[in-house]
């Protein structure tokens, strides 16, 4: 994990500096002006006159001390901004995954158990639909239906669920739905195929011949063994959720890491982009680590050599 993190830091730093042009112009916004004297002082202040590797190691040195620099645009500490925004993206991701799991796992099981029948066709139809519909479109349509037409849920914004649980949840419903739908489809398809494979195993036939209840066979004997590939998909979804959060957070006005990165990229705010990508990479790697640990828990045959 640590070597991967180093490679990521180097890649992120290299890619941003590969962008043509003098990075100091990132400090000049739209409709604002800085003169040459001010620009020269900024180059000096942020070590922009130093060679690439010197700049990289200076940045890395600060990162190890927990200092991700200050945003080029706002002048605020990137680390503090990320600390404030990460929980929003984390909550959104968690709710989206929760929504995806509670819908897709039962749908996948149903689809596998009733293979070739009406429930299977219905689940397949909806899963293909969910993959095909872009999350921003789904977001806009859900706003029009649930906020404008029905008036049930807010159109945008964020309320901390720890401060006001009801309002917090109300604000997370639509973004989580929009974000979770695509994952929902993938998890459902994976659950279905894994369940079909397990349900064809000899031990399931033995269980049935012993007269066990079908529900017990499915939920106790088949489900745990079919969860392994589902967990793999869940781990992979962490990365996808960070990517899609960029669109969903912008649409619903959530002050998370997605909007932070988008604003950073559009504003050439290299300090923000570097800090955010670093944290996101760390979180994705962390999710992969959790996935590996879950493997061992779900399947006692899997052992990691220490």
């Amino acid at each position, binding site marked *: 994990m640590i070597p991967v993190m180093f490679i990521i830091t180097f890649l992120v730093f290299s890619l941003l500096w590969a962008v043509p042009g003098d990075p100091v112009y*990132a400090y000049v*916004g739209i409709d604002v002006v*800085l003169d040459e004297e001010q620009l020269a002082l900024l180059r000096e202040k942020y070590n922009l006159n130093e060679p690439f590797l010197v700049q990289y190691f200076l940045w890395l040195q600060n990162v190890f001390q927990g200092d991700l620099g200050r945003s080029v645009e706002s*002048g*605020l500490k990137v680390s503090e901004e990320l600390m404030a925004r990460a929980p929003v993206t984390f909550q959104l991701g968690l709710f989206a995954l929760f929504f995806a799991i509670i819908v897709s796992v039962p749908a996948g099981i149903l689809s596998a158990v009733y293979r070739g029948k009406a429930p299977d066709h219905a689940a397949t139809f909806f899963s293909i639909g969910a993959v095909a519909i872009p999350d921003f479109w789904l977001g806009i349509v859900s706003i029009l239906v649930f906020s*404008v037409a029905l008036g049930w849920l807010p159109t*945008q914004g964020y309320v901390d669920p720890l401060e006001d649980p009801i309002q917090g949840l109300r604000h997370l419903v639509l973004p989580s739905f929009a974000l979770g739908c695509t994952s929902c489809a993938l998890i459902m398809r994976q659950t279905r195929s894994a369940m079909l494979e397990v349900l064809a195993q000899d031990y399931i036939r033995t269980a049935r011949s012993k007269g066990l209840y079908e529900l017990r066979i499915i939920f106790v004997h088949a489900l745990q063994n079919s969860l392994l590939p589902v967990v793999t998909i869940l781990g992979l979804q962490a990365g996808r959720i960070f990517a899609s959060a960029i669109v969903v957070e912008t649409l619903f006005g959530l002050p998370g890491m997605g909007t932070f990165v988008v604003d950073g990229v559009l504003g050439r705010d290299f300090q923000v982009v570097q800090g955010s990508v670093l944290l996101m990479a760390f979180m994705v790697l962390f999710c992969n680590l959790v996935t590996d640990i879950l493997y061992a828990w779900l399947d006692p045959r899997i052992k990691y050599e220490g």
Partner: protein
Amino acid sequence: MKTIKSLIKIAVKPTTIVFTVVSLLGAPVFSACKYGGHLKVAIPGHFTSMDPHLGRSGWDAYLWRQFTDHLVDADRSLNPRPISSLAEKWEVSSNPDALTLTLRKGIEFHDGTPFNAEAVKANIERILDPANSATPRSSLAIIQSVDVLSENKVRLNLSGPWGAGLSQLADRGGAMNSPTAISKLGEDYGAKAVGTGPFVIKEAVQGSHVHFVRNENYWGKDKDGNRLPYLDEVTIRQVKKSSVRTAALRSGEIDLAYASLGDIEAFEADAKFNTSRMEAGKINLMLMFNTKMLDDPNLRNAITHAIDPAFINKAIYFGQNTVADSGMWLPGAWAHDPSVPRPSYNPAKAKDFLKKAGKPDGFEFTMVTFGARKPESEVMQAQLAQVGIKMNIEVMSGKAAGAAFFKEGKFAMYATSFSRYPEPDWAGSNVYKSSGYYNAANLPNPELDALIEKGAALSDIDERKKIYRKVDEIVLGQSIVVPMVYQTFVTVASKKVGNINTVSMHDGKMNFREVCMTE
């Protein structure tokens, strides 16, 4: 009985009858303002900082205008507005040149720091110090030093006459911040800025919203002597998608926003909303040329005469904007002069200019723009092809496009938008002058430079008008910078919001100082 009689008398007055009939017919009725209420506003832009001096985005003004006051405020035509200015008097003197400001007494910043001559000195010196990277520095560069004459009198010592001075103080450079808060918060000041304005920042979440509450000690009054502000609270949300802003307005989550162009007609026809128009709130489409790369004015004129802005307005802006009738000084500003000849759509003339340039069969060049101006650029590409000009389009992010065009000299033309700057010296010094930041070629142009310097120095508006007319004649006549379409700003608010005609300021940015709730 006397009361009943007087009521009947009022009721049968012609104006009352007209008002009643109009009310019954459903025309907008503006009820009296009430104190209190929470106004929720949505803006599409990305704000960077609440520090008026160090912020990097024009959208920041939507925030700092709520909690700061200006040394000299201005109305939409950019005439000084003493009623909302921190300076109650100003005096221009020469030999040596200076601007002396007499400040209002008894005003405090939100943190209790007194607003006085020392505070003005600290603010101006902060801007002028190059180490602070303050963006209004170029606008105030003429100030050599600041002298505190007394508790409420301050003198700005100038390196020359400064006719543009009062207008420049109505922009970022004149917004006053608490010196105590600046020194206490250092680089974090942008998140917790402190001014003297009608509202105090309660909570600011970067990239999301800012929540303001009433400044209970605010000094300002409206023209009728009513204490300001009316509102208890204002929340400004950043909502980038126009469809979401519209949905939020319709669902009642947001009380006020600028309507997106595609929704203007529907909102104006909807009895649930009040609307207020500001023509030419900004320049929506403007062509800026690198005169080093495209050095023949005939070639530039061929381009500007081959483009039909009326078609672009109809096809892309739902016909809601207005075709530019002059240069960068927009309708409503005193320098606006539509009688100056400017390029207009005329393909035959465009072909004549190509012949004059010795390229009757056309030529090829590459322009740059950002995502939002791509559709317009494609329309222009097709229109230019009609006269034989091949235009290649490069699309970048706003900042990258700006740097590539203005600083790296990579493109011959830039299709962009520009904020409304009613003070002509802002565009004069920063865009037209050979040393200007937004002059891509930075080629010497002694005639234009001399005019701009003269225009900034003169105090008499009529004299300045004559100078800026000459500037426009050169800039538009040689197609150096040519606005194509001005953008209409339409404030949409629910019926319970009053005084919405005071929302848009001289630069098109929003201000809620006099906005109120009527229910």
